[in-house]
């Protein structure tokens, strides 16, 4: 398309606005309200230009006017510049404290701010993270656009009209009450400094350092702005998987690093009290006690818990330490509690236990999301935003299966509120419908799978009528879900709601079966996508911090194991080790005597808390390595202060198998040391000949041992990570698994049907409610990090139990009343929160040690993956006396 701008002939693409084209050509047209080029709001009027088209001459906004063949455009004629000046002068008459981008514009046009009226403070200012200055707010609506169009949160809105127009949250509420996600998109969009991060301040020298967020498995890149040794603010980096998005934890969750409560010196418990000691004393003591126990009771009397919060290098070193320095395979980590069943279930069907697709293709190409057992907007918020945006922005379909009215349910085409623990039945039911409607992908089944007949026979009895009886989902909805799923390019997204069951492996395998049946594997926008809970839960598994496999999932006692032995120069025991819950059982029975826990808090995170604490107390020696005096650390004999992930280097592997490099943002606080340094120092004192000078040294060894990581180097991932498998340095990295063959012996995927088995504990007369547990948006896991942050505690200060309004009524309980929740294992008291949840089901978040949900939960295990059933326990409720 040919147009003329300021006398110059320009060729540009149809569909672009005049503003876009002009800016591409370096013509500076001012605009204060413009945020999304494709969705202009035309509010400020500053970008107005003069257009001649045919015989007509008129003025129009450059942002809202699409270019048209033969247009002659003038961008800076005298009357237009006068108009801009007049608009700016009029703003200047009403405001006085404008900063940032807008201030530059006033300077450029030589206009002084003269406003002096005292504007009222709207209620949205009452919040712990974002400041609001009404004197600076020009109601340009960029924040409203960011909140609604970019984030699909719809919290910030406009109120009143004319000069009284103002930005408010909800119906003029505090941000928290209006459902604000504290993603900070409004702050980033604001051109006047009216909205700012509360911690932000102007400093002469501010460094920007990009690293990876320490919270969930999405692995967002965060830009940290640092002055001296202090982070002053942070925001989602445009150069990460998150493409500039972030959530409350990414944006404000770094505040724990500056907490007064950080451990700064090694501590040894002497006469029941912790005393500060030197590193030498602590390390020598740990080494000698571990040696002593090993000599006295054998290597298998020691167990280690590695950590999905630590780097790949540290996990690698930890399991290597346990295996060849201590000499046991008793090493596991919290993935046992979250995705052990994913690894087993997906391995069984696909031959590989990881997320099949990438965020990028799910974002752009999925026509339907089937979200089951994942409260995505709370637990993996950036992916939650992605789904909301796809649904609202490009019309993707959404099916949610969850007993709670999670936020995504509001955006869904269909919400299946099935009874907790009936997932296999629901999924088998969907497969039954797909086969009976002839919607299966025959070609895919024929060419890429085996065992279809077995599947067909198993799901035969799961008719919609039969499944309705088990799940309580109306049969019409089961049929609708099946047809929708089968007739679109569909992506399954799941998390702990699927995995934390005695039927966890069966749940995962059934989802994989469903994807195979409809050919929704190995293509963009499809797949089976487990969302990993911790920042490095994928990596901790890849590194072999598991009792049954070595780095790269090499099986014990195989040829690959012997190759690893060669690299390590030591013998790897062949006997499989114990898993997390088994370790605790063994400890309580006195079979495990010594334990080394790195960055985990089993006293709060593991099921049946009373039992776990008793097990830890039963140990002869416990060493805990952590940032804080966690509930577990309090039980330790030695506490070693560790550096946080913002204080060290190394790599994390995110949920989509992307290996990402950390950049050190701060120096470690006090005498805290990186975990890899601590492990090496203990190993050396136990006779190991290790000499790693940096995480990079360790990574180079990982590349030799883990074939999936072979092609990845620190240099290659300095700016942006690579996705494994990446077999050599020229390999581009693998975005989608199984696009050609499955990593099974014959290259085919294997249908692995399961029958429905009820959960280990079902409600009965004595314990009539089903308890399910999970995360809140604001807190993370056992709260070790987030509960050190004042603002987070202000938003969610204590535990609560979500309950259906009719159930609450029957108990005579009102919102905010105290409820006693009791299971066969213990009882806790929590506040009632009347919420959208299935009748007969209650939900308690597990972050709060003082009213720990895991006092109630059941440690019954999935027989294959040994994951405990954290998602279903029978409880009874009564109003507190």
């Amino acid at each position, binding site marked *: 398309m040919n147009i003329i701008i300021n006398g110059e002939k320009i060729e540009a693409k149809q569909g672009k606005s005049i503003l876009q084209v002009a800016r591409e050509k370096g013509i500076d047209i001012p605009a204060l309200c413009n945020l999304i080029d494709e969705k202009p709001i*035309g*509010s400020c009027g500053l970008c107005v230009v003069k257009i001649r088209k045919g015989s007509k001459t008129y003025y129009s906004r450059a942002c809202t006017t699409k270019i048209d063949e033969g247009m002659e455009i003038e961008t800076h004629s005298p009357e237009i510049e*006068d*108009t801009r000046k007049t*608009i700016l002068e009029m703003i200047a*008459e009403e405001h006085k404290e404008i900063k940032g981008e807008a201030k530059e514009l006033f300077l450029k046009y030589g206009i002084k701010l003269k406003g002096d009226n005292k504007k009222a403070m709207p209620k949205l200012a009452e919040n712990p993270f974002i400041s609001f200055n009404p004197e600076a707010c020009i109601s340009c609506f960029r924040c409203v656009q960011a909140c609604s169009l970019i984030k699909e949160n719809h919290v910030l809105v406009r109120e009143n009209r*004319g000069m009284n127009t103002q930005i408010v949250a909800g119906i003029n509420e505090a941000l928290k009450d209006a459902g604000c996600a504290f993603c900070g998109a409004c702050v980033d969009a604001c051109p006047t400094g009216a909205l700012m991060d509360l911690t932000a301040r102007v400093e002469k020298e501010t460094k920007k350092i990009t690293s990876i967020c320490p919270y969930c498995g999405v692995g967002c890149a965060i830009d940290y702005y640092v002055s001296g040794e202090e982070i002053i603010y942070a925001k989602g980096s445009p150069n990460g998987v998150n493409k500039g998005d972030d959530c409350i934890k990414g944006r404000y969750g770094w505040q724990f690093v500056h907490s007064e409560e950080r451990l700064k010196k090694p501590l040894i418990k002497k006469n029941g009290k912790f005393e500060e000691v030197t590193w030498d004393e602590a390390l020598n003591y740990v080494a000698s006690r571990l040696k002593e126990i090993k000599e006295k009771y054998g290597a298998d009397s020691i167990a280690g818990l590695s950590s999905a919060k630590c780097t790949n290098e540290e996990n690698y070193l930890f399991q290597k330490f346990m295996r060849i320095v201590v000499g046991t395979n008793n090493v596991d980590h919290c993935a046992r509690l979250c995705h052990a069943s994913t690894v087993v279930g997906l391995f069984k069907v696909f031959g590989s236990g990881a997320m099949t697709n990438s965020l990028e293709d799910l974002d752009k190409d999925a026509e339907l999301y089937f979200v089951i057992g994942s409260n995505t907007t709370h637990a993996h918020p950036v992916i939650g935003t992605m789904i909301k945006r796809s649904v609202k922005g490009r019309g993707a379909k959404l099916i949610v299966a969850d007993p709670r009215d999670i936020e995504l349910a509001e955006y869904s085409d269909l919400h299946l509120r099935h009874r907790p623990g009936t997932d296999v039945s629901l999924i088998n039911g969907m497969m039954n419908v797909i086969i009976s409607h002839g919607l299966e992908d025959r070609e895919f089944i024929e060419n890429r799978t085996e065992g279809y007949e077995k599947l067909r026979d198993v799901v035969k009895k799961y008719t919609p009528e039969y499944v309705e009886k088990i799940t309580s989902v109306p049969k019409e909805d089961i049929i609708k879900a099946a047809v929708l799923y089968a007739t679109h390019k569909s992506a399954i997204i799941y998390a702990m709601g699927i995995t934390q069951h005695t039927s966890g492996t069966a749940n995962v395998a059934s989802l994989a079966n469903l994807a195979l049946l409809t050919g929704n594997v190995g293509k963009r926008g499809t797949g089976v996508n487990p969302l990993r809970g911790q920042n490095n839960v994928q990596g901790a598994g890849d590194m072999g911090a598991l009792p049954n496999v070595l780095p790269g999932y090499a099986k014990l006692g195989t040829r690959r194991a012997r190759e690893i032995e060669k690299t390590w120069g030591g013998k790897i025991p062949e006997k499989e080790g114990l898993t997390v819950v088994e370790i605790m059982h063994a400890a309580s029975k006195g079979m495990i005597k010594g334990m080394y826990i790195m960055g985990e808090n089993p006293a709060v995170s593991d099921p049946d808390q009373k039992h776990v604490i008793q097990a830890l107390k039963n140990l002869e020696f416990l060493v805990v390595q952590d940032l804080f005096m966690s509930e577990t650390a309090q039980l330790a004999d030695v506490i070693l202060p560790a550096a946080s992930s913002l204080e060290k280097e190394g790599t994390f592997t995110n949920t989509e198998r992307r290996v990402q490099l950390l950049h050190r943002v701060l120096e470690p606080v006090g005498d805290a040391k990186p975990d890899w340094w601590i492990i090496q120092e203990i190993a050396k004192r136990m006779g190991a000949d290790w000499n790693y000078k940096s995480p990079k040294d360790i990574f180079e060894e990982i590349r030799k041992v883990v074939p999936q990581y072979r092609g990845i180097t620190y240099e290659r991932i300095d700016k942006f990570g690579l996705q494994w498998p990446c077999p050599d340095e020229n390999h581009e990295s693998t975005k989608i698994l199984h696009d050609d063959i499955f990593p099974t012996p014959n290259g085919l995927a294997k249908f692995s049907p399961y029958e429905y088995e009820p959960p280990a504990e079902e409600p009965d007369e004595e314990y009539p409610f089903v308890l399910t547990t999970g995360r809140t948006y604001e807190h993370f896991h056992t709260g070790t990090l987030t509960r050190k942050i004042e603002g987070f505690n202000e938003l969610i200060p204590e535990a609560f139990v979500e309950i259906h309004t009719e159930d609450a009524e029957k108990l005579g309980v009102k919102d905010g009343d105290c409820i006693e929740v009791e299971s066969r294992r213990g009882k806790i008291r929590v506040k009632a929160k009347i919420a959208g949840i299935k009748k007969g089901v209650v939900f308690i978040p597990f972050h709060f040690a003082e009213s720990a949900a895991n006092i109630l939960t059941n440690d019954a295990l999935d027989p294959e993956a040994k994951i405990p059933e954290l998602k279903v326990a029978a409880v009874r409720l009564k109003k507190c006396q």
Partner: protein
Amino acid sequence: MILLNDARNIEDYLENGGFKALRRALEFEQDEIISEVESAGLVGRGGAAFPTGLKMKFVKNEKNTPKYIIANADEGEPGTFKDRGLMEKNPYQILEGMIISAYAVGAKKGFFYIRYEYREIAEKIKNKVKELHRLGILGNNIYGSKFSFDIEVVLGAGAYICGEATALMESIEGKRGYPRIKPPHSTQRGLWGKPTLTNNVETLANIPVIINMGGEKYHKLGKEGCSGPQLFSISGFVKRPGIYEYILGEKTIGEAIELAGGVDGNFKGVMLGGGASGYILNRDYLDMPLCFSDAKKRGVALGTGDIIVLNESVRIWDMLLNIAKFFEHESCGQCFPCRYGTRRMREIIEKIVNGKGTSEDIKKLNATARAMKIASLCPLGKSAMTAYESAMKNFHDELMEVIK
């Protein structure tokens, strides 16, 4: 009288040939109706004077369905009250025009949008819609034809801006009443993104007239450049204020004032056209025929057809302040030029009325007027300074007298 007949009851309306036009129209092809309207030369009576037939054609030719029709009864211009009178006295003629228009463009659903201040009328219209349903004049298979149509009455929430067609649509959709960015025009993407015909209620009342007498004959009512009857709201310093119906072009402004009993006091001027956004004119305009083309020739417009008569007691700056206050109060706040401009206009005029105006203030007013015209998003902002600019021309000396 053609429009302002008293037919408040269905019996009266039917007795005087009501719904004859509809029955006839249902036998026409859609295009035949539109071409009758086109040949009649009917233009919109809501202020913008856009050719009605052409608008109908745009909507009819859109492929996208469903299509909607809106009767705009958000009569909000100060000094304009003719729609209220029409709805009270002759509501069925509006409804009949709406049904015929819907048939012509292929709309199955109509919205009758009435300003909040007319809520009693809205109740009456609702009852009449029910009545027409009972009589088979609305609903499925109207008069046994294949055409089905329904009307929903929607009450506004008290915002002047919702008289603007796209802000009105936002309001019906349950959103803030903000004008939309055009293009796309609402004939292409209107209500819920679908092709929508929006007409003022008086415009609609003309449709049965055209069908009954035929477009050619209707066209002959009036003179070159304006056809048909129009309602005029005559108020201010006049002895018999009220709604008057004249064939366009037959009367001059002066004659219309005389027919309304003449000036109460000594004549000073009139405010003509769209109420607040109208023109302030002096006695030179008394001989101007009430006709679109004559108005255009003299650089003014008939707008919604109101004449506010000013006598010598009226100070023009006072009047301008009143208008400025109205716009400041009614600016929706969506775009900066109007939001800030209407505030500034009121502040400066207030200063002048208080005797503190300087030539610097006049410069500022002129700059504001120009910026608002160039950069406002919708007609509200673009026309907010019309009164000031026309007064500056027609009462220049009086206005400048108080400026230091």
